[in-house]
């Protein structure tokens, strides 16, 4: 959906900053969210995700910059007049109202008020959408966490908002239920076609659900892009580390060619690198880190079975083996690369028996597996 550039943006941040006293919860954020997109804000605790969301909802006003909703500058428009709805982390269901009244709340505020029959029909429709028919007269505090979560969703969706804001909506659920709700949320978003903006600090959640992920750090956006792009082409060590796992090998730039550079890793291994972080200009003598995903590192007992184009082949000792189900993670140590991790798919173990702790194996990867990033 993100690639549909012709689609007009529904939410726009233009140079938005938000200060709480000394703390800059948002610094100079510029961002466009396309209509119908599923975007996630991802980042560690305190990086300003909630603050960004609350500025869209209207609970916080930007200290600097402008927020636009569907082309309208909303800086001074109060929350109750913005065509967006929010699903709160604690759900914030009204304890003194039953499920029907909670879900109908938004419609009941409209003037003129829709007819009772219309409201009934809408409530039935959204409760159907979240599979809660028959729960109309329940008290919300008598329901399970997952059910409350659905009521909160229904209560927001019934208003057909232009944007649905979700602040860690799944954080309170247990793992299995969270996984189910993630899939449900994604399906729901496709069906209703509403723009979803999700806040999470769970990278798996962000990567699996969103069209685009916006990675934040200390109030700034450090990278925004499709999950696969963020994973394959992290712009910085921070992103490479935050999205998935990565090995980082410090190195020095040697000869620089047009689209590749020779990088010598600390302990002498030298390899050609042709992928660089965003806008990175390499000069001879620069310090960089090479990021290599563990699953890009192949392990074998017979060095000749490594692909021909493997630029790095090092003898390594297996330090540790962690069985992860479909993968096995190995921690290795080598003369050339120091300590690093490699992820071997389960399938390979049927071909070659699992490596034992202490065994010497050959590890290798192709030039494309390594990406040069600024050493920060």
């Amino acid at each position: 959906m993100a690639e549909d550039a012709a689609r007009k943006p529904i939410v726009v941040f233009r140079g938005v900053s938000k200060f709480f006293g000394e703390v800059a919860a948002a610094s100079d954020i510029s961002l466009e969210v396309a209509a119908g997109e599923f975007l996630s804000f991802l980042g560690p605790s305190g990086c300003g995700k909630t603050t960004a969301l609350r500025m869209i909802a209207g609970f916080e006003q930007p200290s600097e910059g402008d927020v636009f909703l569907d082309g309208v500058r909303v800086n001074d428009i109060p929350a109750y007049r913005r065509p967006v709805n929010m699903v709160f982390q604690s759900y914030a269901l009204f304890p003194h109202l039953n499920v029907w009244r909670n879900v109908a709340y938004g419609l009941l505020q409209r003037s003129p008020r829709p007819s009772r029959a219309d409201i009934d029909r809408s409530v039935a429709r959204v409760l159907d959408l979240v599979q809660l028919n028959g729960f109309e007269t329940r008290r919300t505090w008598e329901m399970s966490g997952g059910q409350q979560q659905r009521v909160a969703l229904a209560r927001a969706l019934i208003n057909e908002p232009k944007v649905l804001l979700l602040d860690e909506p799944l954080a309170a659920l247990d793992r299995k239920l969270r996984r189910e709700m993630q899939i449900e949320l994604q399906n729901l978003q496709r069906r209703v076609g509403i723009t979803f903006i999700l806040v999470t600090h769970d990278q798996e959640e962000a990567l699996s659900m969103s069209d685009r992920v916006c990675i934040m750090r200390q109030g700034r956006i450090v990278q925004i892009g499709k999950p696969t792009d963020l994973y394959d082409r992290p712009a910085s060590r921070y992103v490479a580390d935050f999205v998935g796992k990565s090995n980082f090998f410090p190195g020095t730039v040697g000869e620089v060619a047009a689209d590749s550079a020779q990088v010598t890793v600390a302990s002498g291994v030298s390899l050609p690198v042709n992928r660089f972080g965003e806008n990175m200009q390499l000069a001879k003598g620069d310090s960089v880190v090479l990021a290599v995903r563990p699953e890009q590192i192949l392990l074998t007992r017979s060095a000749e079975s490594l692909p021909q184009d493997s630029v790095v082949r090092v003898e390594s000792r297996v330090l540790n083996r962690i069985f992860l189900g479909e993968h096995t993670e190995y921690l290795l140590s080598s003369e050339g690369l120091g300590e690093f991790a490699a992820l071997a798919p389960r399938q390979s173990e049927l071909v070659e028996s699992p490596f034992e702790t202490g065994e010497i194996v050959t590890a290798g990867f192709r030039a494309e597996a390594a990406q040069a990033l600024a050493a920060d």
Partner: protein
Amino acid sequence: MRWYAAAIYVFLYLPIALIVIFSFNAGKYAMDWQGFSVEWYFKAFANPFALKALRTSLVVGLWTAVLATSLGTLAALGLERMSGWPRRASDGLIYIAIMVPGVVIGIATLIAFVTAFNLANPFLEGLFGDAAPRLAMGLPTVIGAHVLFNLAVVILIVRSRLAGLDRSLIEASEDLYATPLGTFRQVVLPMLAPAILASFLLSFTFSFEDFIIAFFVSGPDSTLPIYIFSSIRRGITPEVNAIGSVVLAVSLTLLIMAQFLLRDRTGSRGARGDQA
């Protein structure tokens, strides 16, 4: 230790138990048990002076409850918006107000009323001549003094409930298009309802059973506690015990109801009232 505790309870409740027990005495003298009877209750309820005092107390109690609850709730809502040192100062003043002894409130309000009336009466006379209304002690002064000392109680109860109110509920309401007034009506007020009702019951009770303050500022109409006090001077009769038992029963019932309301039943983060 256990005996000590038991002794304390006997000491606390024996006099009260005696009043209740002897209110059922068939005999003519309070402490001279002649057998069980409820005749003194009938006598009490047939006594026109006792009935008039009861009515006075009910009127004073109801007005006090209505005024103290509505004014106190508004004050609590207003205080919620304050912050910094004005907030701390007003909080402190409220706690102090609750601890001021009844005698002090009685004397202070008496002096205030007398001073105000002495200033106002000549002025009114000048304005209306002989037809001028003469301000004096009466039911309004009792109600005024009672409202005064109940306000702090109400503010404290409503405030603690307000502080326990989940902010995100208010935001959720605004997010769902409710105007600030709509949010107040549909979320804040219903969430405060138990605290407001409890405040009403408590201020009624405190007014209904108050003797000291009413003693200072009441006019010709005496409240029930004052009536009891004046009839004791003619000797403690089982009838007085009966009236006292009725006051006790009413007060206890209302206090228990208020306590029940202030309990948190919904599992929401409502705070308990720390009064009563």
